């Protein structure tokens, strides 16, 4: 009682609250282009062009329009790598043979005539990734690593790609398909037995790339290493770690300017609003328009080498207090004597399945409990996945 009263009191006093604030679509027009990506030495470089849209524009609208032109990666020794346009403003450069010495820059000529170049950037060698590990604090699984820079490498960036396997709550024996079996006189109940190889929806796989680059700096330190750099935290109830989870971390060294630019971009997009937050402002990158100095390009181009590390996490940290059995039921007809199976056409048979299953003599469950695809996964299992689940 005393505790709750105190809690109430403190919460009242700390009533510094954050409330939703409507975002209205702006009507500003922009002539700036966005250049994202890095020059990757020793592998394919992927650089994407984009436009700036008024705030509030739907993402689907933003994906319709992209600047196109001619993109070239140049080095001081005269090397040229021309970008191949893929789609949605993405250009791919085969820089797998680019030497890891010298300085590089990106040269852009947009179809409307505007010409941009980035600053000449030296190549930042890849840091070593050590001790990529997962620790559980009871609530979260924290994935971290140590980074050790090369000789002159003091600023780090990392991205990751995560892949995980998961399964449906129940392995179904029967399937009810209300639409297809309309003509199936032999199976008026429209109930079919499972599984068939095509209809095994128990295991699925999915993957997701990192949204934000991880950034760290060892500047000001006596050694150019970063310990326990946090890569990602996953809740212990997150389905990603329910079966088998894999994270591929890709780290690279970047310039101090590049790190400051990305950090600033991150901060003004995610870290504003507190009492002592700096007033947000736009920071200029290292790409400038040579044809019209009043135009600017958003982005910072670095030339980097990358290194990768992989970590698997089993289900040992997963503890989801969820009982899917509560979703299984014997259907009952509605007032018109009809059965609504539009959303419930999976079946789970924990003990046995009757010889002649009907809508009412077996338990049915929602599709998301028996079809892993309902959770945005797919049956596309990576070929390097270490188990034999299908």
């Amino acid at each position, binding site marked *: 009682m005393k*505790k709750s009263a*105190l*809690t109430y*009191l*403190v*919460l009242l*006093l*700390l*009533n*510094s*609250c954050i*409330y939703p*604030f409507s*975002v209205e679509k702006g009507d500003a027009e*922009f002539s*700036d282009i*966005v250049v*994202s990506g890095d020059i990757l030495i020793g592998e394919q470089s992927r650089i994407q062009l984009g*436009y*700036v*849209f*008024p*705030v509030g*524009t739907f*993402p689907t609208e*933003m994906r319709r329009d992209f600047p196109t032109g001619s993109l070239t990666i140049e080095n001081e020794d005269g090397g040229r790598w021309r970008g191949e346009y893929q789609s949605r403003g993405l250009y791919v450069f085969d820089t797998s043979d680019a030497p890891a010495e010298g300085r590089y820059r990106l040269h852009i000529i947009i179809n409307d005539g505007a010409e941009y170049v980035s600053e000449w950037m030296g190549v930042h060698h890849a840091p070593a990734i050590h001790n990529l590990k997962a620790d559980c604090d009871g609530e979260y699984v924290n994935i971290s690593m140590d980074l050790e820079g090369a000789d002159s490498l003091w600023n780090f960036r990392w991205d990751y790609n995560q892949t995980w396997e998961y399964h449906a709550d129940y392995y179904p024996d029967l399937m009810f398909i209300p639409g297809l079996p309309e003509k199936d006189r032999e199976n008026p109940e429209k109930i079919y037995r499972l599984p068939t190889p095509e209809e095994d929806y128990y295991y699925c796989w999915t993957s997701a*790339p*990192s*949204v*934000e680059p991880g950034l760290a700096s*060892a500047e*000001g*330190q*006596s*050694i150019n*290493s*970063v*310990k*326990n*750099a*946090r890569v990602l935290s996953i809740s212990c109830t997150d389905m990603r770690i329910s079966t088998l989870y894999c994270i591929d971390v890709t780290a690279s060294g970047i310039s101090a300017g590049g790190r*400051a*630019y990305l950090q600033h*971009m991150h901060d*003004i*997009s*995610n870290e*504003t*609003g*507190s*009492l*002592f*937050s*700096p*007033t*947000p*402002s736009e920071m*200029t990158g290292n790409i400038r328009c040579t044809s019209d*100095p009043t135009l600017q390009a*958003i982005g910072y181009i670095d030339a980097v080498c990358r290194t990768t590390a992989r970590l698997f996490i089993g289900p040992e940290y997963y503890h989801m207090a969820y009982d899917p059995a509560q979703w299984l039921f014997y259907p009952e007809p509605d007032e018109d004597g009809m059965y609504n199976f539009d959303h419930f056409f999976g079946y789970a048979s924990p003990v046995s399945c009757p010889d002649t299953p009907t809508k009412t003599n077996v338990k049915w469950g929602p599709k998301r409990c028996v079809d892993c695809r309902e959770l945005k996964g797919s049956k596309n299992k990576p070929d390097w996945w270490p188990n034999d689940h299908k």
Partner: protein
Amino acid sequence: MRRLVVCILVLLAGVCAAQTPLDRGRTLNEYNFPFNGHYFWNGVEYRPGTVYFNGVTYRGVSVNINAHTQELLVKQSQFAPPVAAEQSLTGWFAIDGICYVNLRYYGVKEAPAGFWISLQDGKRTVWMQRQKQFLREPGDHNGVGGIGYDDPNYRENIISYFRQKDYYYTVKRGTFKRIHPGKARRRAMIPSGIPPENNPEVWVAREIKRNNPLKGAGYELPPEWFSKNETSSERSALLAAIEQEAMIASYRNKTYEIGRKGAGEGRAKVSGVVRDVASGEALGAVLVSDRSGRNYCYTDKEGRYSLSLPTGENLLTFREYSMEDMDIHVIVNSSGELDIVMREKVTALQSAYVTAEGMADHRRAGMGIEKLSQSTITHVPSAFGEGDIIKTVLTLPGVKSVGEASSGFNVRGGSSDQNLILLDGGTIYNPGHLFGIFSAFNTDVVDDIELYKSSIPVRYGGRISSVLDIGTRSGNAERLHGSLGLGILTSHLSLEGPIIKNRTSFVLGGRTTYSDWLLRQIPRSSGYAGGNASFSDVNLGLTHRIDERNSLKLTGYWSRDGFSFRGDTTFRYSNLDIALKWTRKRDEDHTLKLTAGFDQYSNTLQRGLESDPLGSYSLSTRIREGFVRAGVEQRLGSHTISWGGDGVFYALQPGSISPLEGSAIIAKNLKPEMAQETAVYAGDLWQNEGPFSVEGGVRLSSFLALDPVKFYFTPEFRLSGKYSPLSNLSFKAGVNSMSQYIHLISNTSAISPMDTWRLAGADMLPQKGWQAAGGAYWTVFGNALDISLEAYYKRMHNCLDYKSGAVLSMNEQLSADLVRTTGRAYGVELMLRKQTGRLTGWLSYTWSRSMLKEMQDRGIETINGGDWYNAPHDKPHDLKLVGNYKFTHRYSISFNLDYSTGRPVTIPVGQYYYGNAVRLMYSQRNAYRIPDYFRLDLALNIEPGHYLKAFTHMSATLGCYNVTGRRNAYSVFYTTSGGNDIKGYMVSVFATQIPYLSLNLKF
């Protein structure tokens, strides 16, 4: 033979006279007496007593005393008629342990006839005599507010009263006690409608200006006479009350002659010191004027005043809003001194807020000057009920802030670092506690606060926008007092009293918060657990009066703040100020003030990253300054000339980083900055009884930065003038220029705990500014309503702003991340102020703009393309309504209404994909505004009752901050949360009603 007979008869007569018995005197007939039905001092009963009569001590004599004729009445037996003992032979008598002394018998010829009782406080003796007057028409004096002695209910109860501050004392049967009069009794006791000469009973008090008159008199006095009369606290309280009453009454009823007669006609100077009658503390900012009101002056912080008056009869008026008005009749013969005491108003609910100077604006040549008092501050509702100087300052026109939780304030378009905040002469660099929710100043120890927005006196310098000069109290030189305040988040305690009575006094105050403890109590699930936030501060002041002309004041202030809301990062900052001030008043026209001191402000950020132990560090900055300030003020006729000089030595550590345990951070110190700022100044205030007055001055400031050496010299000018065609109407205009050699390095809107200061130098130019202002001041409805209208235009140069992505800490090339801007501000301020009646307060409206422009052309990176942009504190419309409605002397409500335009912000106007997520593109700097601000606060104030026997006195404030619960935006921000959706949010510091209860205990 005949000669022999004559000699024998004469001898016998002498012997007979020497042996006159006590009970053989003039028989006194009893007579009717209208008041209380009798004329006796205490009661009608004769009681056994001891009488020293004609050199013989008589014990067990049945005696009483006639308070009408001041005679000792003796009865030989119960039925014998009373006899009035011969006064010239009666030295003293004692009844019930109280001794009544005939002072004339002991050689005090100036004492009125009769018997006196003495009260002592261990040092002085005051003699009291009760006098009853025979009033033939008592009913005539029974009017409203008069003593109701026709009412039988009062006959035995209402005798007389003394009043000391909030307390009433009655004297009854030779004793006294503190009482709490009810409304009816109080009304009855306060004889506002009774002329003194018609008061049926008075106590007369006399202080005999010599050492104990009874000592060495050669006459016997009762044993234990002095020990019996050693004072108790109650007796001393009564003594003080009597003294005060007597002194006040004495001042009011007398006509004082000043100077030597025959000095001729012309003008003469009257000067003196005004003190609080109860505490003996000097009263500053008391308006002293003649009858016309045109000739006036203000007392300085030492309570000194000096006024030139025509010789002859004059009326001197003394006005200070929390004190009772004092009008003194004087006959000025030549220059002389007149010290005055004033008494605090009995009504503890001070009804006026800003200043007692009802006509003040008409009298000063300067403009844009606001004065606040402690009681003003405590009655303006504020969050959590803690009286707050900065928040009260923010209710004044022309003063704004960027949000509710911000430490600083902005005056007339200036940034928060352009305000010089002085506490007893020492500079306070961060005036906020707990993110700015509380100000750094303890109102318990604060005396007077002056804010200069426009006509900044020439003695001040170093900042280009304003000066907030805060003085602490000297402490009660008479007796020990204290106060304790309890609030929801904070507590404060103060003590004050004499170390050497009437010579050396102290005041000690401290505050702390228990927010830390509260934060530890809440569960983790609340989302607030794991943080801490706390502060504390201590004020100490010692005042020593060396002699009538010299005094010393030593003050110290220390504060610390610490908070952490993410377990791995802790912020701490601390203020330290020590100052010693010597005031010497060579004569009434010449005052020297010399102050020396030391200030320090330091802050520390400790980041112990669990995720990156190699990167754990402690980052700190510190600024120290030693200063000496000397100033002389001299009056020469209608001129008041001030001159002096300042010297400030700065030692600034702009950044120091050190590793925490296990960290790989390399310890590093940025190059310290040191500099010497020196200024000399001279100014003159010219004023006479005419409608014009002018004040002007020059301040020559210089700044020498050391290593690398860089020297700046800036002459500053101050000029203001006043024209008063009527006593209640005046017009003013003024212009001043200022310079500032220190910059606050910040890229946040509010003062942040980690903001650093940097000195001007080779790569950082000093800030400069000037302001021109004009105004009209009109007082109407019998001085009840002050109306003022001021307009100003201000320019500022070399103000710092920052480049996008600037790194402000541990940056060896800081100037490369900063940009210089020029600023302009202009506005109009209207203020209506009501200072009398049940409803008091003020309404102010300000329309103003404040804009900045980058001074350099950096091409595409130039802020706003080189055009003007809104300053972060630019809020064009600003409306404040502050008031207090007094129901009774004890109960009142206070309210505070605040409306302003939303402050400028930079918000996203565009969005784009970068990598895998949507990013935001921001507008030009400060191109948009957050929603308008509105807040209403209410408070119920309950002042202490007048319980005479109570040792402590409690007051309480029950209030609610943000009554309407409006969610005022502190800021708005947008986030992509790493995804495709952009979400907008609004931060509201106090998003709901904040009820509070504040208890204050005085003892």
